[in-house]
């Protein structure tokens, strides 16, 4: 059932100041037809993980370990040419800032048609027809075919991005914070279009976000990342109702809720730098429950309940369970 499996992924950036451990031993899998959310704050490695899947990490970054299995084949063993045939065709990706992610000097029509011409060998005419259909489907008037990105609003541009991603009917769509540059109302409309399309085509989706609200809204399963490592992996229900990692708990406690006013309990301290990440558990510098052992031992991911993994040495401790339930008012 797993269409994509990522195991032990390590992507480091070799900068002049030192090696940035952007993604350090990250594993997760994506099941057919589900929405997997990668959640984390800036620098947690969620975007780099996604880029690593497609081999799009730019210099000075390099994937130095792990496997990316697509339908049982390791994409890391692929030649650049083979990988190119996966990109856009079997796995498509959309990015955070639609304005920046579209080439400003090409019309949107041209940009949508590009992958079709490359992967499907469509003629100009065929590509154009298909593009018009796609545009209609994502809700863009067809006379916009010859518009340039700057002539469209952010929401519209993000729809263009979807149309482009869906051009070759990929099996997997990776969406990297596609809504964070959009207004709330636009975001809601956009998510609707995205989820409808996903259901329609039975795609699997990796959705990267820092917004737990969106996670609650669309995810089937969730991977919580922090400082390049996986903290917790579980279904969306488990995450929100029974979080078993202090970081997840901290996140949930520091978010104000729109439904009712509650007390906020922030996570103390700052996000650590990734050149010399904290020893042992990367979260120990900010963890309320940290013990001496946390400074030394890198906690392994262990299943705490069915399909619920946590990388905390004290995942079952009463304090944590209490914190996760009791303090959430």
């Amino acid at each position, binding site marked *: 059932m797993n269409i994509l499996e990522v195991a032990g992924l390590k992507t480091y950036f070799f900068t002049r100041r030192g090696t940035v451990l952007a993604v350090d031993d990250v594993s997760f899998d994506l099941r057919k037809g589900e929405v997997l959310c990668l959640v984390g704050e800036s620098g947690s490695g969620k975007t780099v993980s996604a*880029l690593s899947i497609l081999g*799009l990490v*730019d210099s000075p970054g390099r994937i130095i370990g792990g496997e990316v299995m697509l339908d049982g084949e390791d994409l890391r063993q692929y030649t650049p040419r083979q990988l190119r045939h996966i990109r856009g065709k079997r796995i498509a*990706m959309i990015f955070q800032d639609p304005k920046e*992610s579209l080439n400003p*000097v090409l019309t949107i029509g041209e940009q949508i048609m*590009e*992958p079709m011409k490359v992967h499907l060998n469509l003629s100009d005419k065929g590509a154009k027809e298909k593009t018009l259909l796609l545009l209609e489907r994502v809700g863009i008037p067809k006379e916009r075919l010859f518009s340039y990105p700057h002539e469209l609003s952010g929401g519209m541009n993000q729809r263009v991005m979807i149309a482009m991603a869906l051009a070759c009917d990929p099996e997997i769509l990776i969406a990297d914070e596609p809504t964070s540059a959009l207004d709330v109302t636009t975001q809601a409309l956009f998510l609707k279009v995205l989820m409808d399309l996903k259901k329609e085509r039975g795609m699997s989706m990796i959705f990267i976000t820092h917004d737990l609200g969106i996670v609650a809204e669309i995810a089937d399963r969730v991977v919580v990342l922090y400082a390049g490592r996986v903290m917790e992996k579980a279904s969306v229900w488990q995450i929100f109702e029974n979080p078993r990692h202090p970081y997840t708990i901290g996140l949930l406690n520091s978010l104000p809720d729109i439904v009712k006013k509650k007390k906020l309990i922030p996570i103390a301290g700052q996000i650590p730098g990734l050149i010399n990440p904290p020893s042992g558990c990367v979260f120990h510098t900010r963890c309320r429950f940290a013990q001496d052992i946390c400074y030394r031992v890198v906690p392994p991911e262990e299943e705490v309940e069915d399909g619920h993994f946590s990388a905390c040495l004290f995942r079952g401790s009463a304090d944590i369970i209490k914190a996760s339930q009791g303090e959430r008012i």
Partner: protein
Amino acid sequence: MAGKKASMGGYIARRLVYSLLIAWGILTITFLLLRLGPGSPADKYLANIAASGRVRDIAQVQAAIDARYGLDKPLYLQYVDYISNLLHGNLGWSLSTSLPVTELLSKHWIYSFELIFLSTVFAVLIGVSIGIYSAVKQHTKADYAVTVFSFMGISIPNFWLGIMLILVFSVKLGLFKTYYDTSLPLFSLGNLKAMTLPVITLGSGMLAGYSRYVRSATLDNLRKDFVRTARAKGLPERTVILKHVFRNAMLPVITIIMLDLSGVVFGGAYLTEIIFGIPGLGRISFNAIFADDYAVVVAVTLIGAMVTLIFNLLTDIAYTFLDPRVRYV
């Protein structure tokens, strides 16, 4: 759409008006320069007469000649005369070559044009390609080689380079003629061969400069999100570079090339023409300076400024077609 066209027309109109304003400023400054020069047209004849050492009463001759050239009029009337003469295409009479300045320049501009044109083509073709190459291969040995080579190209005084080239390739190796032969038809094979050393002399600095600009512009654009999008679409690397990166990178480079035209190219062409004996505008004005033939010097300065102005205008207009974003400015 109609609104867009109108705004584009408006933009061009605005540029035109600015250019006219600048042109007027240029005319005024050149007029002042002409008046700054110690020489009046009279001085030429006066010098001749005085040189014989036999005529004492020079003041009278001076007055007569001043009257003939309208120099006894108040300054503003001279200014009006100057402008109206220019509008009639009359740049005055060149005393050192016995030709109307207009005719002199119309005979000689082609040599400068050929030199600048060939050098620009040479510099742009090679500079742009090695610039892109070195950006794509950033941090490789090839990149460092290009970088060091570019710096050397920028730093080598082109008048010195010219002399050395003549010494080595013409005198010692006898590969080229030591001078530029004007009897060969322009752009003929022999003529192009004669242009080799001058073009290298003038072009190497430009080439090096352009390769630096192109490299950094390409690097800037390589980091852009839309490049990642293009790669995520599975486009071949060639297409990514040539279609997506190149077009965007060239936009700022075009401006720089145009700016170079007034500063680097004219100055360089001036020296190159002197060294290789190419009878272009630079050489003409150089000789005119030492012959106190100010009308020619000022006319060449004027033309240099006007050409720069027109090229800047053309660049601005070309921008509206190359960069769709500008149309709304």
